[in-house]
């Protein structure tokens, strides 16, 4: 996992529970990483999951919901590093460009980055995003989509379908309900 995700996670926890909480979390969690997390670095997925699990346990929140909220928070931080990718496109176009543009750009900067795969089914009313990742972080992906809709000020409804026989896979059926400011 890229260091930027760890850093945003730190910011997310501090926003919710304060700086001391995160310091305690660091002190009390056994991590493989001995150095501070920096954006361009790459760290074990297990470290993020260890911090996340310790945080939800201490805060007493539902992990899936927490992961979704983190995704929502993460989107705003990530888009701030490359706002040009969200210019001159609408939400649907942006979502459609995730695999062919955004992830390609990510790999240009970080060739070792492992990004999830997205395939799409489109209709006038819906966009179905088929997620696949060995990390099985579909709640994070859902949160990212919600964060994205917030960024574009659009109301959406997401119907999420997981697959018992294939936990790496998930489908999001997104309905676009128009501008959220109206």
């Amino acid at each position, binding site marked *: 996992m890229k260091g930027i995700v760890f850093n945003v996670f730190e910011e997310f926890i501090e926003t919710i529970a304060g*700086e*001391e909480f995160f*310091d305690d979390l660091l002190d009390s969690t056994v991590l493989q990483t001995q*150095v501070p*997390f920096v954006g*361009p670095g790459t760290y074990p997925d297990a470290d993020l999951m260890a911090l996340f699990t310790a945080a939800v346990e201490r805060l007493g929140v539902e992990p899936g919901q927490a992961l979704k909220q983190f995704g929502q928070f993460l989107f705003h931080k990530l888009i701030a590093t490359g706002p040009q990718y969200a210019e001159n496109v609408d939400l649907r176009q942006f979502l459609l460009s995730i695999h062919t543009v955004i992830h390609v750009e990510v790999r240009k900067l970080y060739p070792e980055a492992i990004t999830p795969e997205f395939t799409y089914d489109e209709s006038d009313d819906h966009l179905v995003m088929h997620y696949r990742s060995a990390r099985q972080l579909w709640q994070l992906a859902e949160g990212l989509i919600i964060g994205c809709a917030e960024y574009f000020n659009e109301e959406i409804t997401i119907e999420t379908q997981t697959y018992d026989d294939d936990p790496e896979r998930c489908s999001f059926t997104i309905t676009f309900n128009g501008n959220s400011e109206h």
Partner: protein
Amino acid sequence: MTTSSCQRCTTLERRLQREKDKVHVLERLIEERSATLYEAKQHSEELAHSVESLLRSLPEAMLVIEDDLIIDCNQRAEELLQQTRETMQGKPFTEFVSLAQIDKLPCEVECNWLAGNQPIPTLSSAAEVIGSTNKWMLVGRDMRERQQMEARLLQAQKLESIGQLAAGVAHEINTPIQFVSDSMHFLKESYEDVKPLINAYEEHRQLWPEDIRHHIEELEEDADMEFLREEVPAALDRSISGLERVASIVKALKGFSHPDRDEQSLVDINEALSNTVTVTRNEYKYHAELSLVLGELPSLTCHLGEINQVFLNLIVNAAHAIADNHTDGTLGRIEITTIAIDGAIRITVEDDGGGVPDHIKERIFDPFFTTKAVGRGTGQGLAISHDIIVNRHNGSLDIEDGPAGARFIITIPIEQEGAQ
């Protein structure tokens, strides 16, 4: 200081330390990334250099085309089309390649590339540049050398079959000519033997009875004995001389059509020249007198059949030049001289056929170059001769101006080490 403010200080100190650590890590990351970038740049430059070297050393000419315009080319293309890369860039490729057949990519087609007005037979392949929709690459292989080899092979095969045929005919003629010649010599000697007898009859004619002498004189008159006594020996001499000439032509034909195995053999160049002059006599005898000035030569290790082919080409060319130049019907002159000089044998074939203009001299040994009318020349004779002398015998074939025509000079080293 309160407990909470103290705790806040600790937190801030820890954060500060973490941020300082992050700076160190980031600095190291930047250094690592810079080193990686530097190495990648070096690697890219090396790769670009090797690709460029590869493209430059390709024996094929290559053009990169975008929207029908040439955007790049390699060195071979510059050489083939006699234009620099800079002058070709931005020009439509159709200016250099007549490729009406390209309607889909990839394709392979034989076509002409155009260097000025000169068409160059080329085998071309056209294919899309990977990852580009409107950019494609045209690769052309110059087919002249292959066509020249094919022509040479064809000519060699033709000469071989003509040679075999000629050798067979020469062998067949040789036997009857031999016994006709023997018989003619026998007749001549017999006539010489009979001559004293006839003279004796003549001397003793007055002793014969009148009626018998009268009858014999009548018979002598009917047979025109006086004329026969004068002309029969002369007729026999002419026949023998003619037969000797036939025999020498047959011998020359056998020598000329010597089956040329791939290995070289020891050859008397003067004899080879004489044979070739004999078999080509019909080509020049109506247009020129040919004189041979043969110096004393050592034997030369060479491909006899090929050397004969060179002599034949030069003699026939000289005869054609004289025929074109002497339109008033006067006979021209072909002079062939041989000399051993500076470790080499030099053969000079000089004519008075008007010579070769300078702008043609430059291209006279190029394959397919000819100034002769269609059907009279293929443009292969001098190119093949040049190849035989230069590449097969480590020699040289040059042209210079003679007093009234062209002078071809063949120089072949007597030592033939490394010749093909």
